């Protein structure tokens, strides 16, 4: 019985600890967080919440391979570490490759009686920087080889750690420092790379999207990803108040707006079964009047403020069309969408 709410999360060999999947907050509040306070992520950052929710979905011993980025840097400024579980950072583009090596090592060590655990979950954790672009090759390779690794993408939609530069995950028209909203070009001109769809195309056992604002949905998906035997990929929206230019306190609110406007639909894809809409997105598919116009997502973010100028109405229309096209396509493929 420990007094401190924070301590290292230790699993001793042979120890039997029950970590059932639950949404009972009283029960979850008894679990020790895998990420400790004193980390130096910005006030109101969603990334530590993503990790916190992973900790609440955890089912046993777990190790993390983290790519370079905000989360990695701000949680391990020497001599401090905020990680209560085993963790490794090697480079920017190789979270998936590093995780593949860890997974292979545990397999080999278990085969030769040198791993005193039934199973250790291996998680690769990377931002959109280390996933959409520079990390895509390693991720694709890991998926193709079928490693039993859950890859969590915390997507803050730009290279935030280096100062808000555009990435393949940046939405259209978003201001970033390398896609500024100028007199001639109104922010990023390309669409957001459909990374989760790319992972579905790899036909790995489980792919899902989530946000920390829809925590029950996300914890379920994290747990599913861990339980699946083989690669799983969870794309988590991770609002960044610095880069998106929004108020510190509306991080969770923005997640809701992202889902309510269908900008970031919540779904999962199960190999052999297909697409399933989940949580709020399923509700919207059943009751389309719940869908909010894209302005509801854009209006609270400074990175889109140029779109709210009267002369840019046509850009919002384009954005809405893009969102609608992706949403309609998803609904048409979803197994559980109303017909």
């Amino acid at each position, binding site marked *: 019985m420990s007094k401190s*709410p*924070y301590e*290292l999360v230790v699993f001793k060999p042979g120890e039997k600890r029950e970590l059932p999947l639950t949404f009972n*907050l*009283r029960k*979850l*509040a*008894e679990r020790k*967080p895998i*990420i*400790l*306070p*004193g*980390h*130096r*992520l*910005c*006030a*109101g*950052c*969603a*990334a*530590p*919440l993503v990790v*916190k929710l992973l900790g609440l979905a955890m089912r046993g011993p777990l190790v993390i391979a983290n790519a370079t980025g905000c989360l990695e840097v701000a*949680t*391990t400024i*020497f*001599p*401090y*570490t*905020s990680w*209560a579980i085993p963790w490794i950072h090697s480079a920017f583009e190789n979270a998936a490759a590093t995780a593949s090596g860890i997974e292979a090592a545990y397999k080999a060590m278990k085969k030769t009686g040198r791993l005193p655990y039934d199973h250790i979950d291996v998680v690769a954790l990377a931002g959109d920087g280390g996933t959409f672009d520079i990390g895509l090759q390693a991720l694709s390779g890991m998926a193709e080889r079928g490693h039993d690794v859950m890859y969590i993408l915390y997507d803050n939609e730009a290279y935030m750690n280096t100062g808000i530069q555009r990435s393949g995950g940046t939405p259209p028209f978003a201001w970033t420092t390398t896609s500024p909203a100028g007199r001639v070009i109104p922010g990023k001109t390309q669409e957001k790379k459909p990374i989760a769809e790319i992972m579905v195309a790899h036909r790995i056992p489980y792919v899902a999207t989530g946000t*920390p604002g829809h*925590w029950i949905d996300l914890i379920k998906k994290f747990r599913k990803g861990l339980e699946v035997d083989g690669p799983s990929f969870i794309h988590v929206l991770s609002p960044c108040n610095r880069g998106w230019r929004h*108020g*510190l*306190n*509306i*991080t*969770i*609110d923005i997640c809701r707006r992202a889902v309510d406007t269908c900008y970031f639909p919540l779904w999962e894809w199960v190999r052999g079964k297909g697409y399933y809409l989940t949580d709020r997105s399923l509700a919207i598919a059943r009751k389309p009047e719940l869908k909010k116009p894209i302005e509801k997502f854009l209006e609270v973010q400074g990175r889109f403020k140029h779109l709210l100028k009267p002369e840019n109405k046509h850009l919002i229309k384009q954005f809405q069309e893009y969102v609608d096209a992706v949403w309609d396509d998803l609904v048409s493929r979803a197994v559980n969408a109303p017909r």
Partner: protein
Amino acid sequence: MSKPEPRGWKDLPMAALPYKLSLEYRTGDWRALRPVIDYGKCTRCLICWLYCPDMAIVWDGEKPVVNYDYCKGCGICAHECPVKAIEMKPETA
């Protein structure tokens, strides 16, 4: 066991392993606003505990308590509280 900080290379762990937990780094001094919970209104729903990105709200078994050592004053707890039991007050000198 206390060595003078910052340490020389002879006293550092191998392979550049961090040797302190971030618990020793109190981010509470980042705050401009501090959350104050009105326990009269609080329904003990634990949503504030859930959404704190800094694990700075702890559940003591009966109620949520703000850990001002680490709270950065982001205000997510106040914004998300279903009964508006948390008020963000200016951090005084």
